[in-house]
């Protein structure tokens, strides 16, 4: 187990800078997920930690050692790739044992290690098969096995679940989490899927355009998003955003609606953005922050998502699954005060 520290990490390709000074400290045994949209620099960061990309400036420390100039093999890490990268011409046994080729273990010890890993990943019966005889989930497990067999200090996962179908992805999510609980190694996991990030991570690192937007536990980034980007990126459906201005006694939204919110930290005339998660914005009969006309409903079973037109702005709210509103109904939308997020419209930063 080991710590991974990134200090002012910068990556540039020619004149194009893609990482703008990443600072991150990953504790020993921690499961950290780097998440963000395509092109945010999460995979580049991971590849730099692995040693597959050169560092333009800054420092990478693994287990307290500066590894900027070390070859990937000397960093004591293992990586699982998006496309599994298991060799089609080798059996499962050879694939898993591939990482031990350069070790000084005897053949018996190697075989023993392979058998142990295969048993953990339930691959024992598949050891003599070739990858083309395996399902997607089994291939993914082989890739994990190849990483595990070397017992590295840290595991790096580069979007390993992207190629799996939804059901298998859920299953593999659980397996990776179980694996972490069992082996306790440091894991750095890259994904663009915020559900994966929320369900697996001890801490989530949300990135955008080569800059870390927020680092926190899943609940922190969900309930206390640092800015509008994080607020919209985490949670599905995305948080409703309504622009407005602080009035004398309440908030005047740009669509003409007025909203009562605590104004103690706001100054009159300040441009702000109100964030309301669809889960926290409830369709009510009588009370409400504002009202609107239902334009679309999406029944989800236990709940219904109602798309409500509030003076020209569409917001998503949660309604009863059993008694959903009908399209065209006029409904009131209510949210508890503690569920209202306020952001500075100019900077996008949260107003705490």
């Amino acid at each position, binding site marked *: 187990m080991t710590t991974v520290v990134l200090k002012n990490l910068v990556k540039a390709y020619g004149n194009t800078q893609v990482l703008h000074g990443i600072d991150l400290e990953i504790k020993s045994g921690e499961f950290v997920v780097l998440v963000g949209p395509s092109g945010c620099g999460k995979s580049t960061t991971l590849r730099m930690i*692995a040693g597959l990309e050169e560092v333009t400036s800054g420092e990478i420390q693994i287990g307290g050692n500066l590894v900027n100039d070390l070859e990937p093999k000397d960093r004591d890490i293992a*990586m699982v790739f998006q496309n599994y990268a298991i*060799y089609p011409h080798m059996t499962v046994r050879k694939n898993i044992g591939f*990482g031990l*080729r350069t070790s000084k273990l005897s053949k018996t010890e190697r075989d023993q290690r392979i058998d142990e890993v295969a048993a953990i990943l339930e691959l024992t019966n598949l050891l003599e098969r070739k990858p083309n005889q395996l399902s997607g989930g089994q291939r993914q497990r082989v890739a994990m096995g*190849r990483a595990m067999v070397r017992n590295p200090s840290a595991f790096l996962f580069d979007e390993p679940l992207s190629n799996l179908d939804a059901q298998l992805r859920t299953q593999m999510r659980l397996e990776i989490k179980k694996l972490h609980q069992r082996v306790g190694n440091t894991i750095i996991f890259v994904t663009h899927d915020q559900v994966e990030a929320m369900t697996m991570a001890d801490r989530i690192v949300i990135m955008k355009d080569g800059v870390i937007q927020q680092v926190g536990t899943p609940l922190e980034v969900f309930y206390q998003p640092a800015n509008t980007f994080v607020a919209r990126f985490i949670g599905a459906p995305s948080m409703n955003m309504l622009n407005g201005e602080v009035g004398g006694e309440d908030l005047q939204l740009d669509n003409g609606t007025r909203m009562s919110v605590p104004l103690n930290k706001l100054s009159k005339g300040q441009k702000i953005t109100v964030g309301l998660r669809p889960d926290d914005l409830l369709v009510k009969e009588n009370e409400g922050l504002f009202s609107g006309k239902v334009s679309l409903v999406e029944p989800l079973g236990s709940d219904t998502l109602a798309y409500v037109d509030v003076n020209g702005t569409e917001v998503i709210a949660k309604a009863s699954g059993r008694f959903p509103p009908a399209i065209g109904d006029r409904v009131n939308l209510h949210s508890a005060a503690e569920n209202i997020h306020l952001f500075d419209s100019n900077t996008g930063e949260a107003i705490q």
Partner: protein
Amino acid sequence: MTAADSLDHNSQMTSLRSAAKRKRSQAQFIRWLLLFTGGIAMVMPIIYMLSTSLKYPFEVYNLNLIPEEPTLDNYRYVLEDGRFFGWFTNSLVIATVTTLCNVLFDSLVGYVLCKYTFPGRYIVFIAILSTLMIPTEMLVIPWYLMSSAFGWLDTYWGIMFPGLMTAFGTFLMKQFFETVPDDFLEAARIDGLNELQIWWTVAMPLVRPALAALAIFVFLGNWTAFIWPLIVTNSQEMYTLPVGLTTFSVEAQVEWELIMTGAAISTIPTLIVFLIFQRYIIRGVVMAGLKG
């Protein structure tokens, strides 16, 4: 729509369908005819070669496919002629060594050009490709001067050196290595293999079809090579098979039956190579994006 209209519509549809079917069969027939003609054109010389090899000299200029008095005397004569075995061995050694060298060097250069980024990579690749535009006949003189200067005339090395690495092979291998995902190489890098080990252990097995295709091309090319071995060799002992077979033509006459017998025997190794690797050759050519 009335019942009569519906009937009319159905009969129209049926006639349209049968017209389309007729057109399809005609097109099919033309395709088959063209393929058959092409096949005959390619097979006839081989059949003639075999037929001539079974004829006595007096019957050689008869165009009959089946010899009136078939004989294996030509085969006996050629095989008992000590020189033939020597030429056969020369050709086999030269073609085999050249093939192995091509498989090794072309794939190494193709791999480097494909998987590594370095200044001038594109220029090097273009320079290699541009040599494909120079006809062999133009290169023969510099090759000869080189061989003469280095004392390689009438040696195996002199025959082999121009073909130990080819631009075509490099291009073929580079194209194939494009299909090997970088993830494989990076995974091996993380697992601790050095670059040469990655090339040999990971990349090469993944391009086996291309290697087989390249091996066939190079082997056939060298097995049938004529002009350069003819120029660079002086003694009959160093002749390759195609060059050696020409000694059956003497001033007074051309012993076609012996030449054809030698040619028939010389096709055996190429047939064996082709039969072993044939499933790869098509895949290799298709994947390299070339028209075979």
